[in-house]
């Protein structure tokens, strides 16, 4: 059995300490908030220190940070499934009570259980969730290609209708700032497509001028994107990044605890 430092350390920090914390927390509500903060600090500080401390026990091929990355790929998978349990509970409750719209909850559950079963079958049978060896689709892939992808694409595509309607009804030059926004939007929209060539298509003598105009608009659009837009985006990125980095430090240091959902007797 491989008992190198990284494996043992991770098990101590993220298995043994939580188990001790759960046992102690049964009788002491105050510890239910404290010990998770310690665990959070360790989990957050390891990847940061590993970036700056090139020691093999930390950031080497079998280091703690490297092994922790593998752990958290697995934990992220479980986290993605959290919503499934929530929806199963809520939909089952709705169907059992025959609440308004319960039939749609039944449709939802049917889709969930059918697709999930195909996924589980793929894992157990070894056929997976892609193509079969003969090139045909697995049941999971068929549902993905014929139900999931078309529905997701279509539901998002509805936005085009609403956006066009909003552009007509709500996009108004009410003040200086709105006018700047409107003009920039108009220039970029005109510069990103061969709009002048399209308008000049029925008039051949105008086409060279239209082509030149399109080139000018295209160049202007690129200048707007590179400079005023690039500057604003850069400012936003810097500001947001500094805010996010300081929030990250607050969470790791245990100053920010809202994500733990601590109750009245559990605040530290």
């Amino acid at each position, binding site marked *: 059995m491989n008992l190198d430092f990284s494996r043992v350390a991770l098990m101590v920090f993220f298995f043994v300490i939580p188990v001790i914390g759960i046992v102690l927390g049964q009788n002491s509500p105050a510890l239910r908030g404290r010990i998770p903060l310690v665990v959070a600090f360790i989990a957050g500080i390891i990847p940061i220190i590993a970036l700056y401390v090139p020691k093999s026990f930390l950031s080497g091929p079998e280091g703690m940070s490297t092994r922790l990355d593998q752990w958290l790929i697995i934990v992220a998978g479980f986290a993605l499934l959290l919503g499934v349990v929530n929806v199963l509970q809520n939909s089952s409750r709705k169907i059992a009570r025959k609440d308004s719209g319960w039939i749609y909850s039944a449709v939802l559950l049917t889709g969930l259980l059918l697709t999930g079963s195909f996924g589980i079958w793929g894992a157990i049978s070894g056929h997976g969730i892609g193509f079969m060896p003969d090139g045909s689709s697995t049941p999971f892939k068929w549902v993905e290609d014929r139900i999931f992808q078309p529905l997701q694409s279509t539901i998002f595509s509805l936005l085009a209708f609403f956006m066009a309607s909003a552009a007509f*009804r709500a996009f108004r030059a009410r003040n200086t700032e709105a006018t700047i926004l409107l003009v920039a939007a108009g220039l970029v929209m005109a510069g990103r497509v061969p709009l002048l060539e399209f308008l000049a298509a029925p008039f051949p003598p105008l086409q060279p001028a239209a082509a030149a105009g399109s080139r000018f608009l295209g160049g202007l659009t690129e200048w707007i994107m590179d400079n005023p837009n690039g500057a604003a985006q850069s400012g936003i990125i810097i500001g947001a990044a500094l805010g996010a980095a300081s929030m990250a430090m607050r969470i790791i240091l245990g100053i920010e605890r809202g994500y733990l959902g601590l109750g009245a007797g559990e605040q530290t």
Partner: protein
Amino acid sequence: MNRFFEWLLNLDRRWIYLLVAVSLITPIVVPIGLPVSTTASTRRAFEVIEALQPGDVVWLSFDYGPSSTPENDPMADAFLRQCFLKKLRVIVTALYPLGGLGLANNSLARVTAEFPGLRYGEDYVNLGYKDGAAAVMRSLGESISKAFPADQSGRPLADLPMMRGVQNIHQVKLVFTAATNLIGEYWITQAHAQFGTPVVIGPTAVSAPKYYAYLNAGQLAGMLGGMKGAAEYEKLLREKYPQLDQYYAQTRRFTATKGMDGQTVLHTIILIFIVLGNVAYLRTRGRRRREPA
């Protein structure tokens, strides 16, 4: 005239929806064939890929879902075609949870069918989807097999000839991420920042404006912005590779170039909407101000 503007402002929005649908259906049924002009960001992306040598390993990450296939699918397909024509070796992954894997499988199936001489495991591999994109990228700096112990169908990496010489991301010459939102950003701000691997991004048009900041700061080797970027990339490929020119001219499949016709028509109509809407607003606002209370 004012009555016309009042009527316009109170128009049932479903007539607008109908006009939108008709303006997009018409160029599909009757293609126009409008020209596509290229921009510097796309030319940079194309040239950086063209500069790679046969045998170089590149990484194609499907970081988008069905909500942006008309924009990102053409980019990914075109990138694969360029790689296979240049005899680059391609590692394909998907890091977007809601549909990335299926799109990766479909894209590979489409494009590899056009290149019958390709061999899986030697010319390209599909490592599939993995959760925890940020953790995956950190792992790649040390070892690809720590994040992806097997390919998409469960075959261990050690059994894939191409992967024997590729331990980690440092042996990869370029990452191309066809992305919607965050995961594309991770490739730039985490993978490139930490390992220095050149990144080309094909974002959706919605997120493309943000990436100009990264492009200007030298964090990106190139960018294909939305469907227009994909159309520009297709144009550059057609100019460089005559066999692709023929393919794009004859295929029934949806391509970004074909999509630009519909884009142009609807952009024109929306611009007219905006102008009309503002004229109507200003006229009726002026009239409401003049009318006694």
